[in-house]
C-alpha cells in the first residue's frame, strides 16, 4: 500500500487559559491519500478548524504527530520551507487575508517571488496571468485592488494565490460558507476542475453536509474534539452509526418541501465520548468511536 500523503497520529491540541485547559482536539488519528478529497465535518467548537490548522502547520500541536510525505512536522530534518510551499490554506473570508493596499497581481506574485518560481519579471507576470485565467478572473484583475471584487471573486483571488506556489495539498477551511448560493456552486466546480488539472489533494472542512457529500471521497465526523465516525462518504451518509452523526444528518435541510415535512429529527443522545473509546470498524471502510 502506498504511503498516505498526510498521516495524523494521536493529535491533541490543548489551549490553556487562566489555569484552565480546553482540549480542542483529542487524540485524533487519520490519513489522507494523495489525490483524494477528505471532508472534515462537525459543529462549531468541534475542533475541526483547529485540526486543519495543525495539519497546515500554522496551529499549535500539544501532542501527537502530523506527517507529510512520511516526514514528521517539526522533527529534526523536516524541510519546513518545502512544506510551506506544498501545503496551502484557503479560508472562509479571503478578504481578511488580502492586503487592501496591494494590487491583486502583486498579491498573487508574492508566493512566486518567495519561492523563486519564476526566472524573470516577465515570466512571473505570465504566471500571474495564467493563474487569473485558471480561476476565471479577467486579465485586468491583476491591476485592481481587493475591494473592487465581489465575495466570490475574492475567493477566486485566494485560490489563485494559493496555487501560485504550485502546492500539492490544500486545506480548505469553510471556503464557500460566506458566499451566495449561486456563487458557491461556481467555486465548488472550480475547485474540482483545479484538482483534476493539478492532481491536488484536499482536506475540505465544512459544516455544509450536502456539499461534503458531493465533493468528498471520505468523511471524518468530529464532536467534542474527537473523530466519532469515519469512512467512505457513501458508507457514512447512507448508514450513519454514531448518534451524533445520525442527529447531524437528520437535520440537513433539503430543497424539497415534502421531504422536509416528513423528516424526523434525530436528537443527539451522545454524551462526551468515553476517554478510552476507540475508532472501531463496523463495516467495510467505516469506523465508529465506541
Amino acid at each position, binding site marked *: 500500500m502506498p504511503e498516505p500523503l498526510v498521516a495524523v497520529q494521536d493529535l491533541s491540541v490543548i489551549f490553556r487559559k487562566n489555569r484552565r485547559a480546553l482540549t480542542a482536539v483529542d487524540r485524533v488519528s487519520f490519513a489522507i491519500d494523495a489525490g483524494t478529497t477528505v471532508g472534515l465535518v462537525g*459543529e*462549531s467548537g468541534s475542533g475541526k478548524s483547529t485540526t486543519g490548522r495543525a495539519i497546515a502547520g500554522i496551529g499549535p500541536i500539544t501532542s501527537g504527530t502530523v506527517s507529510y510525505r512520511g516526514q514528521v512536522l517539526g522533527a529534526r530534518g523536516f524541510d519546513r520551507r518545502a512544506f510551506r510551499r506544498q501545503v496551502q490554506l484557503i479560508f472562509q473570508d479571503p478578504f481578511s487575508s488580502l492586503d487592501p493596499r496591494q494590487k491583486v497581481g502583486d498579491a498573487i506574485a508574492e508566493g512566486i517571488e518567495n519561492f523563486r518560481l519564476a526566472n524573470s519579471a516577465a515570466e512571473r507576470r505570465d504566471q500571474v496571468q495564467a493563474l487569473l485565467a485558471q480561476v476565471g478572473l479577467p486579465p485586468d484583475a491583476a491591476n485592481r485592488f481587493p475591494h473592487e471584487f*465581489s*465575495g*466570490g*471573486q475574492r475567493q477566486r483571488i485566494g485560490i489563485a494565490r494559493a496555487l501560485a506556489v504550485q502546492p500539492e495539498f490544500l486545506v480548505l477551511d469553510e471556503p464557500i460558507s460566506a458566499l*451566495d*448560493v*449561486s*456563487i*458557491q*456552486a*461556481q467555486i*465548488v*466546480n472550480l475547485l*474540482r476542475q483545479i484538482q483534476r488539472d493539478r492532481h491536488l489533494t484536499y482536506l475540505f472542512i465544512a*459544516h455544509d*453536509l*450536502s*456539499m461534503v*457529500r*458531493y465533493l468528498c471521497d471520505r468523511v471524518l465526523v468530529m464532536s467534542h474534539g474527537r473523530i466519532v465516525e469515519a469512512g467512505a462518504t457513501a458508507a457514512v*451518509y447512507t448508514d450513519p452509526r454514531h448518534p451524533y452523526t445520525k*442527529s*447531524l444528518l437528520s*437535520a*440537513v*435541510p*433539503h*430543497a*424539497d*418541501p415534502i*421531504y*422536509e*415535512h416528513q423528516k424526523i*429529527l434525530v436528537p*443527539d443522545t451522545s454524551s462526551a465520548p468515553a476517554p478510552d473509546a476507540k475508532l472501531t470498524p463496523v463495516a467495510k471502510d467505516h469506523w465508529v468511536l465506541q
Partner: protein
Amino acid sequence: MSDIIEIQNLHVQFQEDHGILHAVNGVDLTVHQGETLAIVGESGSGKSVTTHALLGLLGKDATVTTDAMRLADVDLTHATPRDFAGVRGRLASLIFQDPLSALNPTMRIGRQIGEALTVWHHPGKAALRQAVLEAIADVELPDPALVASKYPHELSGGQRQRVMIAQALIAQPRVLIADEPTTALDVTLQAQVLALIQAQKAKRDLSVVFITHDLGVVANIADRVAIMYAGQIVEVGTATEIFYHPQHPYTWGLLDAVPDDTADRSELFTLPGTPPDMHQLPVGDPFAPRNPQALAIDYQQAPPVFAVTPTHRVRSWLLDPRTPPYQPPVSIQRRWARYAAIMKEASHA
C-alpha cells in the same frame, strides 16, 4: 384569506458617493394572515431592504416611494418616523442573524426582554416579571429565572437566538420578520430554531416573513415563496409551485446549486457571472446576462409579470406565449414530473 401586509410598487434608492444605488425596483408583496412567506435572494437582491422599508428602518440616505404600504390596519404609505415607531415591536418585530449585536451586553437578559414590553404597556413589577419568565419559558429555555439573571455573553449562540425571539414576541406582535435568523447556526441548532418559530406561529396566529438564501430552510417552513433578483420579485408562488414547478431560470439555478442526495459527481449546474451592478442596471431583463435561456428581447425590454396560476407569477419572457419551445435542466424536469404527480393526486382526492 385576508392580508396582514400589503406593499405595492415599492422603490428604494440609496444616495451614495459615486451615484444612486437602485436597491428595490418595483416590489409588490402581500403576506396572508397566518402564513409564512419566505423571501429568497442573494446579497444585494433587496430582500432585507424591502422589509426594512416596511418597518421604517432605513436611514436618511434612502429614498422610499410606494403606491401603497399597509401593515395590519395601519396605512404606512405616507408614514413618518413616528408612525413607524408606533408599529415596530407592537405589530411587527424583527429578528436577525446575529443576536449578540441585538442584545445589550451590559444588561441582564430578563430586563432586556422586559423593556420590549414596557415600551408599550406598564404592567406592575410582579406582572412584568411574570410576563418575562413566561416569554423565556415560551422559547423553550430551561430555568427561566436563571436565564433572566444572566448576561448575553453567558449564553450560547442558540440560547441567544431564543432570547431574541422571546424579546421579539413579548409584546404580542402580529408579524414576525426573521432576517436570516439561522444562517450563523449549525444544522442541528438551525432545525431547533425553525421548529421553535413554527410552534410560536401556530400558538399565536403569527404571520411570518422569513428572509433567507437557503432553499432547504425555505422548504422546511414556507407556505409561499418570493424569489428576488436585482431588487425585483422574479417569481412568487406556493411552496409546491416554487419547488416542484419552478419557471424562472434564476429559481432553477438556485435549486440546482445545492447538490441533492442523488447528485452524481458530475459538475453542479451553475449560473454564470455575478449579479448586476445596482448602480447601473442594464436595459431589459437584469438577469439576461446570466440566463442560459436568454432571448433577444431580454436585452431590449424588461419582462412583464406572467401568471402561471392565480397564485404563481413569474417575471420572465420565457412565459410569453410567443417564446419558442425550451427545455429546463434535467433536474428541473424531474421536479416538474413530481408536480404533475402531486396535481394528479390532488385532483383524485
